């Protein structure tokens, strides 16, 4: 499994973000969109169709899967149809590995004072 994970790195920023927001739990399309937007401070705004393009690809690569879960029926009954997506084990491993990689980079950047250290002002 480790071999396969390393082959997937580095993840594109968009893919990383999508996987990252899924670590919190399963989400449906709109949820993912909003979480990605929040997580990136409004910088990454996905158009719905492009989100699903990425999802489709991630599913093909085995990082994301469709969830069995269906939303609790809401007043308007729309949520029933929505599909939820969640991380696969591979996906979780991949996002973890990528986070670690990014962490190593930020550590090195702190050492060189490119970004303020944790203890700095």
């Amino acid at each position, binding site marked *: 499994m480790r071999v396969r994970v390393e082959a997937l790195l580095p993840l594109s920023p968009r893919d990383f973000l999508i996987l990252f927001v899924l670590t*919190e*739990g399963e*989400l*449906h*399309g*709109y*949820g*993912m*969109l*909003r*979480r990605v937007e*929040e997580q990136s401070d409004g910088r990454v*705004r996905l*158009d*719905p*169709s*492009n*989100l*699903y*393009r990425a*999802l*489709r690809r991630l599913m093909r690569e085995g990082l994301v899967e469709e969830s069995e879960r269906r*939303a*609790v029926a*809401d*007043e*308007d009954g*729309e*949520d029933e*149809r*929505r*599909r939820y997506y969640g991380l696969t084990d591979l996906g979780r491993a991949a996002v973890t590995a990528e986070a670690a990689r990014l962490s190593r980079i930020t550590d090195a950047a702190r050492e060189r004072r490119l970004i303020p250290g944790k203890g700095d002002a």
Partner: protein
Amino acid sequence: MRPAGEGGSGAGKRAPAEGLAVALYRAALVSYPCSFRRDHRADVVDVFRDLYRARYLEAGARGAIHAVAFALPRAFAGGCRERWGSRRAGPARAEAAAVAADLRYAVRSLTSRPALTCVVAGLLGVGIGISSAFFGILRGVLVPLPYPGAERMVSVEVRLERAGWTVEPKATTVLELRARARALARIEARAGDRVLLAEPEPQRLSVVRATPGLLDAMGVAPAAGRGFLDSDIAPQATPVALLSRQFWRRELDADPDVLGRTLMLDGIPHVVVGVLPELAPGRAAVWLPLDLGTSEARVNAYAWLHSGATLEQAREELAANPPQSERDDHEDAILTLRATRGAIGSQRSTVLLLGGAASALLLLACANAANLLLARGVTRRREIAVRAALGAGRGRIARQLLLEGVLTSLVAGALGLLLATWSLRAAAAAPTAVALNLLSAARIDSQVLMWTLALSVATGVLFGLLPAIRAARPRLTAHLYRVGSAAGGPGARTTGGVLIAAEVALSLMLLAIAGLLTRSLLELEGMDPGFEVEGLVSFNVTLPGDRYPEASGRYAFWGELQEAVGGMAPVKRVALALTAPPIGLVIAGVLEVAERSEPADEGFQASINEAGPGFFRTLGIPILAGRGFLPEDTAAKPLPMVISQSMARRYWPDADPVGARVRITLPGMPDSPWQQIVGVAGDVALRGVRELAMGPGMQVYLPFGSGRAAGRTGALILRSDVPAAAMAAELKRQVWARDPELPVEAMEDVTTSMAGTLAMERFLAVLMTLFAALALSLGIAGVFAVVSYAVGRRTHEIGVRIALGAGEGAVRRLVIRQALLPVGVGVAAGLAAAVASSRLIGSLLYGIGPGDPVTLLSTTGLVLLAALAAAWLPARRAARVDPVIALRAE
């Protein structure tokens, strides 16, 4: 608390214009591939709706609009990326990989049997090379046509109804036509002329005077400098000139600074403003602008139809409103338009001939190559069957075979191009080709390259197609489990037979044509020119009007020159003439004989020459009645005339023409004087032997200096022991001793120039013989291959026969008999084709008819012999087969 984005999305409250926004978004999703839309469109639209509502809640109308503006283009672009991306990533990539694999397989397959591949590529290369060479020649002949508008080009001629022949229009007529004709978009003209170039050596140049728009209309752009402008023919304009590339290279040493240089032509300085490209039409050394308004000459006029007009419309317009200037000269003159399809008419036969021969050779080469491949194709059936059993689709196998064919043909095409370039260069350098503008103009340019490429690919497809078609119908199990090698069956036998018949037919056709052309050439060469050609040397001199204004001065010059040359040691006899054979002039007019009520001939045509005293004796022309010319004849009245024997026979069948008075009236010269016949000479090939070959020789001789030229130009013909080269310097000295500025032209042995008139016939005969020899070799090789292959297939059967007691002779006869039927069919087809095609080239044959039995019989015999010889060897091998081995053979 529910995580943000979970359910509570602002969904639930419809935002204004939500329906429209969603509809627009749905429309943008069209760019996504079907699979994506099938799986995700619903979700995507839902998410968009949520987003739209959320944005509206956050930022009102502005937010909603922003959401749509943001999402729509991105959705569309994403869809495109998904579509193209999916093609690359998915099945498309697999497809490309398959083609690459097929290509690799094809290359491996070809290189695994190098001998076969080389032979096939070589055969095709020869065929393609010859076709390319022919196309290169065609480019030279037809250049500058075809060019845009070529098919709209017509030539303008004047037809004289009563006399029945056509002449060129006057310059003023062309001007009139320009003003009137609406169906004609432009009209240009040209006229040939000769001017005197003073340096480095005085010489006369043939020039073309052309209207400023002519070159442009014919699509010829100068290679350097500029073409003619209308300002060049303005009244006070500086005289300008365009040089042909050959002249620039030859006389000016390809001077890079030639533009702006001055040339003295006819004593007038002309500024060089441009150099024409290699492919400029005609062989004039220099082009000068033609001002139609001031020219009195008759010109070659060409017109181009308007894009909407037809030739008929133009003709009708002309008939309704004819220009009047021709009527001033001839009452019966009618202006006509003739469609020109490019090449000068007389070359059409040659072009057809070469084209037909090249095609025939290409077909032969293809037939041979196809035969080889088919034979190989049969043995590959097992390989193909295995591939099919392993899952390769029919289309895939066919594609791979096609690739093999195309690859081979591309290699062949490259070889062919090399062959064509080399052979054209070699042929152009050979001495016989010097006189021919066909080869010197031939070139391999980008059009020829494209043609070669197209031809290669076409033959490759054709080739690859045959085994591919066969491969598409495999009977798998039969081939997989087959023990005997009897693969082929009746289908292959017929194909082999068709191939043999085709090879024999094509070879026979080419051989027959070559034979006819060769015999025609031999006939021409064997013709008696009517005078003694050996030992004659001639040269021309023209006396410029400004320094020799009086006839007496001119005659004095000629007299002195003749005496001086006659005094030279090697010279035995010398005489004056207007032109020396084979250059001659032709007249056409009305012939009247005194004391006969009607004109003897209204369409009289004859070669004409002016002859000084001693002319007939110098040239060795027999005087059959009366006498030749005497010195006082120039001024005698009535003017004496000598006619040829054929002319005497035609117009005085029962009487002696000597003493008769005749008058020849030429168009535009109504008051011709009566002349008296003083002698009858034997027929002479004044314009080359072809003149005599085409019909009885009509020749008319006048005393030197009595015609319109009045001694301004003349030829000195001398009989000498040494050739022209050895005498040239001395002869020129004699001329320049009297006048150092006179150009001495065309100094050569008359044998050389007479032989030169047959250069085209010789070229064609040699070329066609080469083609035919090639065809015969290909044919023999083809027959040999087919018969060998057939024998190979029947090894088993032959083994059985021999084991059962058949003798060698019987086996041989068996094999040959099988080949006989297709050979017979081929001979019949070839004879028919030969007769039909030789009729097309009838204009190139002299003294021999297209259906000449001797030629046809002998070539048929040759082909039969060759075919039988080709079949003999495999037959002999079959007869020697060891029955034990044959019976055991697979």
